């Protein structure tokens, strides 16, 4: 066990523990904050594994942007502040499939790697990764920029209900009133329709 192993074990334990809390906590906001801990521990893992640029991009994009977006969504959907009891479905199939996937992958990887040892390669600094991205991987890089543009346009179209509506559908699809109608109103409407 070298120092890198000890660091990897500690950071991995933090990441898995925070992941357990993300999927098990009853507080919506705390789930987002535990996700920050989990992603931060993973960024530390990347640093130990000599992936410098990936670690900082992880901190910038995941911890900085994605988690903030998720917390915004939690707030915008009027999440309760305290603990809420209706967050979970009855979870035996979920535990079975999730545990099966995790333990199956773990057994597979332990069987493949045993207790073998590798030397850490040269660090993946921004210079080395930039050379690779802009030489060997430049076509996927450009395709990703198109994908980001498509996602941007898609998010805008989704969040604006006046785009793409059929001209004859004036009520604009099923809204809250259509979802939970007052039964008296419907019966009255049908009665009056029969008279008219």
């Amino acid at each position, binding site marked *: 066990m*070298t120092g890198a*192993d000890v660091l*990897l074990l500690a*950071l*991995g334990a933090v990441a898995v523990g925070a*992941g357990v809390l*993300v*999927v098990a906590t009853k507080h919506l906001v705390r789930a*987002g904050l535990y996700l920050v801990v*989990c*992603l931060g521990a*993973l960024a530390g893992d*990347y640093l130990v*594994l000599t*992936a410098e*640029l990936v670690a900082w991009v*992880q901190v910038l994009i*995941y911890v900085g*942007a*994605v988690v903030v*977006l*998720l917390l915004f*969504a939690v707030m*915008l959907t009027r999440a309760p502040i305290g603990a809420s009891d*209706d*967050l*979970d*479905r009855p*979870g035996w*199939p*979920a535990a079975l499939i*999730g545990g099966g996937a*995790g333990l199956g992958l*773990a057994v597979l*990887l*332990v069987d493949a*790697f045993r207790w073998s040892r*590798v030397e850490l390669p040269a660090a993946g600094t921004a210079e080395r*990764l930039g050379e*690779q991205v802009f030489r060997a*991987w430049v076509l*996927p890089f450009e395709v*990703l920029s198109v*994908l*980001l543009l498509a*996602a941007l346009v*898609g*998010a805008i179209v989704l*969040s604006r209900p006046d785009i793409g509506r*059929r001209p004859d*559908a*004036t*009520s604009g*699809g099923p*809204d*809250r009133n259509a979802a939970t*109608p007052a039964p008296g109103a*419907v019966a009255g*409407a*049908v009665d009056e329709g029969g008279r008219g």
Partner: protein
Amino acid sequence: MRPVIPYLTAAFLFGLGVYGVLRRRNAVLVLMAVELMLNAVNLVLVTADTTARAVLPHGGQVFALFVIVLAAAEIGVGLAIVLQLYRMRASVAVDEVPLAEPPAPVLAAGPGARAATAHGGVGVDGPGTDAGAADRTEESR
């Protein structure tokens, strides 16, 4: 460095993500569990970059960067869908989302479409005659 340690971390994180996606009812929590799965894959990619000697150096880390970009795009579109769902239904519980559309001609039946849709959804009467009745009701008012 023993590569089995980060690989095991990634395997457990992926299992936790699968469990969270299947267990949670709140759509935002489902998206958080999806993030856990994506991060497990990223950890596998970065670890494989240190263990495998490829022709192109640092291919795993470049792929991890690409996956991070994909995750950012996914979370943007996913949250747009979740917020639209909340606007329409006032709830983000994924097991309350109706998978079947209401009958299409009732939806396109003009001003009385709302009452007719609700009535057709309950299933008391045939949707075809009902739409016409509700339509006349709206006009008589």
